[in-house]
C-alpha cells in the first residue's frame, strides 16, 4: 500500500505551519504522529495535497501543571502520557485511556493532539476530554483561541478547527480534593478500536457528588457528551442507585450502529455496564482510593 503524492513541509514555527495550511485552503493536513492519517492515505481514502509536519516545531511536547491547568502539548506522544507520574497520580483517567489506545508501538508515535483532533468517534481521548471539561488551545492566522471540548466535536472527522488552525495545547482543569476519574474501554482484542468506551470525572464533597462529567466513545458520529447523565449525579450520594440512574441516561443518548464490533443493542447495553464500572472506580478514586 502506497500513499499518493503530496508536498511535505516541516516548519519550525507555528506561524509558518498556519501559513502553509492557509495557503492550501483545506487541502493540507497536519501530520503529528501519523498513526491514523497515514493508513488512510495508504488505502488512498485521503489524498491531501500537502502534509504539514509539526514535529519540528519546538516546545509542543510536554505535560505540566501550570496555573489552574494541566497542560499537554499537542505532539506529546501517547506513551509519554502513559508513563507520566503526574498523570498516574493526579489524572488517572488519562493513564486508563493512554494505556489502551492501540498498542505500545503506535503509542510511541501517536500524539495526544492527533487522537483528540482527528475526530474519529472511536478514539478514546475525546470522551475523556468531554468528561474532564477540558479545553483546547488552537493557533490560527489571527492568533490563539481556546475551544471547550464540549463544542469541539461537530461530526465524524469534523471538528471546530478551521482548515488553517492547529491544536497546540490541551488544557485540563487541575484536580481538586474529592475528584476522581476513570476510563473504561471494552474491546474485542487488545489494541482494537473500542466496542464502546465511557469516561467519567466526579467531584465528591461531604459524601455527595458536587459535579460530574461523562463522555462516551464509539456510540455516535462523534464522542458524546452525556450531560444529562452527569447532571443526574449532582447532589446525589455516590453509590449504586445514583450510578445506575446515570448509566441509564448515558445509554439513552448513545446512538450506536451495528458493525463488526457488535450489534447496536449490545453497544448500548455496554454503555450502561461500563458507565457503572467507571463511576465506581472514579468514586473510589475520589475518596482517595485507586
Amino acid at each position, binding site marked *: *500500500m*502506497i*500513499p*499518493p*503524492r*503530496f*508536498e*511535505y513541509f*516541516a516548519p519550525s514555527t507555528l506561524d509558518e505551519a498556519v501559513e502553509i495550511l492557509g495557503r492550501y485552503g483545506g487541502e493540507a493536513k497536519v*501530520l503529528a504522529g*501519523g*498513526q491514523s492519517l*497515514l*493508513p488512510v492515505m*495508504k*488505502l488512498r481514502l485521503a489524498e491531501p495535497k500537502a*502534509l504539514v*509536519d509539526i*514535529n519540528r516545531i519546538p516546545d509542543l511536547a510536554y505535560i505540566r501543571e501550570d496555573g489552574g491547568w494541566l497542560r499537554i502539548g499537542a505532539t506529546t506522544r501517547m*506513551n509519554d502520557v502513559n508513563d507520566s507520574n503526574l498523570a498516574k497520580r493526579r489524572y488517572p483517567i488519562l493513564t486508563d485511556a493512554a494505556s489502551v489506545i*492501540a*498498542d*505500545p*508501538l*503506535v503509542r*510511541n*508515535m501517536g500524539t495526544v493532539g492527533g487522537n483528540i483532533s482527528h475526530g474519529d468517534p472511536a478514539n478514546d481521548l475525546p470522551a475523556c476530554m468531554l468528561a474532564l471539561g477540558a479545553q483546547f488551545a488552537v493557533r490560527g492566522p489571527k492568533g490563539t483561541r481556546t475551544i471547550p471540548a464540549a463544542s469541539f466535536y461537530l461530526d465524524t472527522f469534523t471538528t471546530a478547527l478551521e482548515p488553517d488552525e492547529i491544536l497546540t495545547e490541551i488544557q485540563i482543569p487541575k484536580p481538586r480534593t474529592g475528584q476522581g476519574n476513570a476510563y473504561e474501554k471494552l474491546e474485542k482484542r*487488545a*489494541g482494537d478500536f473500542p466496542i464502546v468506551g465511557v469516561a467519567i470525572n466526579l467531584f465528591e464533597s461531604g459524601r455527595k457528588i458536587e459535579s460530574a462529567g461523562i463522555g462516551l466513545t464509539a456510540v455516535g458520529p462523534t464522542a458524546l457528551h452525556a450531560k444529562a447523565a452527569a447532571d443526574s449525579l449532582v447532589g446525589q450520594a455516590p453509590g449504586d442507585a445514583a450510578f445506575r440512574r446515570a448509566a441509564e441516561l448515558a445509554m439513552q443518548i448513545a446512538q450506536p450502529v451495528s458493525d463488526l464490533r457488535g450489534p447496536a443493542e449490545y453497544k448500548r447495553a455496554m454503555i450502561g455496564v461500563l458507565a457503572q464500572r467507571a463511576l465506581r472506580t472514579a468514586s473510589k478514586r475520589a475518596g482517595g482510593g485507586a
Partner: protein
Amino acid sequence: MDEAEAMPAEAEVGPFARVRVTVNGAPHEAEVETRTLLVHFIRDVLHLTGTHIGCDTTNCGACTVLLDGKAVKSCTILAVQAEGRQVRTVEGLAEDGKLHPVQEGFVEEHGLQCGFCTPGMMMTTVALLAKNPNPSEDEIRHAIAGNLCRCTGYVNIVKAVQYAAQKSRGGGSK
C-alpha cells in the same frame, strides 16, 4: 504492450526531499519522494531487508524499528519524518559478531518459527528491556501486543524476552 519494450528514461516523479538518517550507527543520505515510507527507505534504498512488511495498516509490527530508541512501526512513518534521527534495525543488534541477548533468547527459547515477525518482535523487546529491565510476564505480553506472530503462540516469545532480560541483568553483553 509495446510501451514496455524499452525502459523509459528516469521518470519525473516527486515531490522529493533529501533525507539524512543514521541507521545502525552509519549515516545515510538520499533524495526520496516525500511519500516514501520509512520501511521502503530501509528495505529498498538501504537494502536492509531484515525489516519486514506484514499488514500496511499499523497492526502487525513486522516493520518495527527503533527510532531514537523507541520502537515504532516503520510502515506508518515517512522517511522524511526520520530526518536527522537515529534508526536501529535488526541488522544493528549483533555487535562485533556477538549476538545481542535478545537474539540469543529467541534462539534458546525457540521464540521464532517462520522468522518473519521476529525482527520486529526483537526490536520491540530491545526497547522494552531498555525501559524495564525486569518485566513481569504480563508486562511482556502487553509490551508485544503490537507485534503479531502467527506461528509461535507467544509462550516461547515471552520466555525469550525473559531469557534476554535475565542475561542482560546478569551483566552479559548489552
